[in-house]
């Protein structure tokens, strides 16, 4: 492809158009190049290729560069091609789109057919070699081109025009996307309405619907992301998916939980699991729903919700109440502790440390000292020293 030069596409004096063909793609050797959709013109002197979308993009190669040509038949999904073998580029060649190429041949791919005629004509020109006898002079205009008299601008203006066309292309893509999106949403709305009517029928028939059907309905809702009209939950909790997920989690979290003293906050779990998965991540709702099923599935973990709303996963074997006893010891040793200090001592997250101290307080083992300096816990002397 380095034998091509930029050109205005206008024929020169003495140069005649022989044949032209739309829908031609160029290859540099075996590799596709960005010139993928253009009009290929054969003249007495040159092969010219002009981009169908951007008429200012026009390249040409003198026929004198051609060594020989051969046909390449079409295949399944492949267009018919003409392979053009070339002499090396001359040193005084005009600038073109490629500075160098590792191939000494190019291919012309005829996506809209026409290669048989083109090959015939090209062979003729190669035989007659009319470019040797008809010297090319100043340029004249070819009336075949409807945009007569256009001046192709190189440089800044040309680049700007190309960018403008690209921008229009992108805009067109986006508006097309919005259109498609609207149509899609219409269909989605139909699904929502259908699910509502089904939910109503379920309510009316109360018990006429089997459990199997209920489960299926919930999974349909889950796929569409529709809120369950009966229970108002968006997650259709209790689906097969969540049951499987719960079992998976039990497997994945066993070791991390043991490493962290048997308890982890749900956000920690969320990050841990999703970081490990890398792809096909869990939504927060998926996680919560799966965890809600842990206990009923008799798995070795359970979900626990503290008064503050903080949610944690603990090992069944973990007993927070027992941990409170040891927390009391720790606090007594130090006289008093804040959640931060306790967390550092024990090696827990501040969030869980605070929950443990609050639980201890709830059970009556600790008293709080709530001041501007922070929340500090003391052993409950009222209880022990009465």
């Amino acid at each position, binding site marked *: 492809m380095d034998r091509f030069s930029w050109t205005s596409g206008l024929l020169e004096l003495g140069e005649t158009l022989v044949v032209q063909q739309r829908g031609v793609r160029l290859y540099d050797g075996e590799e596709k190049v960005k010139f993928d959709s253009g009009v290929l013109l054969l003249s007495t002197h040159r092969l010219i290729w002009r981009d169908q979308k951007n008429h200012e993009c026009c390249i040409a190669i003198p026929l004198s560069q051609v060594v020989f040509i051969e046909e390449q038949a079409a295949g399944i999904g492949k267009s018919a091609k003409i392979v053009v073998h070339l002499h090396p580029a001359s040193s005084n060649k005009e600038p073109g789109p490629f500075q160098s190429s590792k191939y000494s041949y190019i291919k012309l791919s005829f996506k809209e057919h026409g290669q048989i005629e083109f090959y015939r004509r090209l062979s003729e020109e190669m035989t007659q070699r009319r470019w040797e006898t008809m010297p090319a002079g100043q340029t004249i205009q070819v009336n075949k081109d409807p945009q007569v008299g256009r001046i192709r601008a190189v440089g800044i203006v040309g680049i700007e025009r190309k960018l403008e066309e690209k921008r229009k292309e992108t805009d067109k893509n986006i508006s097309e996307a919005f259109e498609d999106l609207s149509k899609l949403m219409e269909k989605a709305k139909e699904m929502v309405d259908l699910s509502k009517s089904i939910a109503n029928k379920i309510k009316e028939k109360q018990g006429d619907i089997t459990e199997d059907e209920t489960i299926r309905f919930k999974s349909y809702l889950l796929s569409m992301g529709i809120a369950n009209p009966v229970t108002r939950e968006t997650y259709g909790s209790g689906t097969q998916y969540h049951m499987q997920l719960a079992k998976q989690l039990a497997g994945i979290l066993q070791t991390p939980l043991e490493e962290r003293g048997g308890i982890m906050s749900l956000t920690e779990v969320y990050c841990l699991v999703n970081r490990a998965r890398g792809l096909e*991540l869990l*939504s927060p709702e998926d996680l919560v729903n799966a965890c809600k099923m842990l206990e009923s599935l008799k798995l070795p973990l359970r979900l626990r919700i503290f008064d503050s709303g903080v949610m944690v996963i603990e090992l069944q074997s973990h007993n927070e109440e027992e941990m409170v006893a040891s927390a009391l010891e720790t606090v007594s040793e130090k006289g008093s502790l804040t959640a931060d200090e306790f967390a550092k001592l024990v090696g827990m997250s501040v969030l869980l440390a605070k929950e443990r101290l609050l639980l201890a307080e709830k059970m009556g083992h600790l008293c709080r000292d709530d001041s501007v300096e922070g929340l500090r816990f003391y052993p409950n002397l009222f209880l022990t020293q009465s």
Partner: protein
Amino acid sequence: LLQMSKQLDMFKTNLEEFASKHKQEIRKNPKFRVQFQDMCATIGVDPLASGKGFWSEMLGVGDFYYELGVQIIEVCLALKHRNGGLITLEELHQQVLKGRGKFAQDVSQDDLLRAIKKLKVLGNGFGIIPVGGTYLIQSVPAELNMDHTVVLQLAEKKGYVTVSEIRTSLKWETERAKQVLEHLLKEGMAWLDTQAAGEPQYWLPALFTELYSQEITPEEAKEAIP
């Protein structure tokens, strides 16, 4: 129910078609994502409800937001010791972008808000508080009621607030103002400056970078002080 199953399959095909044409668009174009989310909300569909939903599986929207959720949690955790669990949306945005690196997809503030709304269900106290023209993101289970929120909004302008300012602007009694400020202090969301001229000032570290957006290292700090 059979009808639903059939229609569901049809819809799935439609969605697949849509995805094959426009999946890239969703990943790369924040504005398109907003459009998409708004339209879903209008018709009553939550594309982020489950990773197993069609939307997530075929358009990949799920992974984008769930991963963002992880990054948001990590940023908030890292900065909690400094701002008590309150951070402006801007700073969160900056930090998340930094963490994602140069080659990651573009993430907009709208994207962050949507991811945060989903995180609320994890019970860790994620909340979104409107202040000034923007939002403060809460990431700890501290109770912040209307009074606290209003004071935060007042503090947004200068990064700090005083008891007198609260009395004048909000027409509260001193006691009420003090209670709110003390709560913020306790939660680590406000810092007390007793050396300020006039009366003590309650500063909000969450708002620091908005006003004084230079992060310097301890070495630079040492050099700066004569």
